[in-house]
């Protein structure tokens, strides 16, 4: 069964479960091929599951126009289907969409298949094990 689909703007999306100390939450996340990180979730959604914790973790995100902006991050356990992985999540502005990036696909060993003509998308198991898989940076 396909675990991805296209939204009304033909963007590929998937359903993930974010796991925190206060519970779990299912979210529809846009699969963003222009994002090389793991995950980006609005702060309001993270707060509902008790994330982030008390420590401050930051990083720098480089935007399309090459501007660098500081972002807050937290370690976030996420489930896709029945598999769980823990990766760094950008804590985005309170409202908006959740996004998964290329490091997410690497962590879950998935390949993205998009067929806009037939309104179809899927996150299939990647059958190719590249050397990058063992040195993943998610």
């Amino acid at each position, binding site marked *: 069964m396909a675990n991805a689909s296209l939204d009304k703007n033909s963007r590929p999306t998937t359903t993930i479960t974010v796991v925190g100390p206060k519970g779990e939450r299912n979210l529809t996340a*846009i699969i*963003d*091929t*222009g*994002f*090389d*990180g793991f995950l*980006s979730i609005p702060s309001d959604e993270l707060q509902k599951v008790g994330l982030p914790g*008390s*420590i*401050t*973790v*930051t*990083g*720098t*995100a*480089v*935007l*399309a*126009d*090459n501007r*660098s*902006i*500081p*972002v*807050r*991050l937290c*370690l976030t356990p996420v489930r896709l289907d029945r598999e769980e992985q*823990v*990766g*760094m999540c*950008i804590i*985005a*502005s309170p409202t*908006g*969409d959740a*996004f998964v*990036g290329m490091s997410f696909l690497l962590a879950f060993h998935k390949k993205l298949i998009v067929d806009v003509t037939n309104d179809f998308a899927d996150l299939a198991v990647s059958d190719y094990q590249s050397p990058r898989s063992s*040195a*993943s*940076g*998610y």
Partner: protein
Amino acid sequence: MRETSHSSKHTKAKLRRNRPRRKSVSEVAAAGERLYRRLAPEYAGEQGKYLAIDVGTGKAYLAASPQDALKLAENVNPKGSFHLVKIGSDGLYRVASYGQRLTR
């Protein structure tokens, strides 16, 4: 009675004032970038790996992934503030297509 309550309120306010102010995201990131500029030559041969920099102590923790670097740093200082960098890259992540959503 009133005096005690007033005095307790006064003490709490004093404690709040004396508590070190928590750094903002921008302040932690700026301090982390400053420290990284100093540390970068030491890690020049570790392109593509990640550093978690403790902005309080200036110590850096190297690992193959950002989450592993952070775990190393947190084990040493569970209450620290940390800045993550990808060695040899302009930033930790590139957010090319929907970047505007990150700005508040």
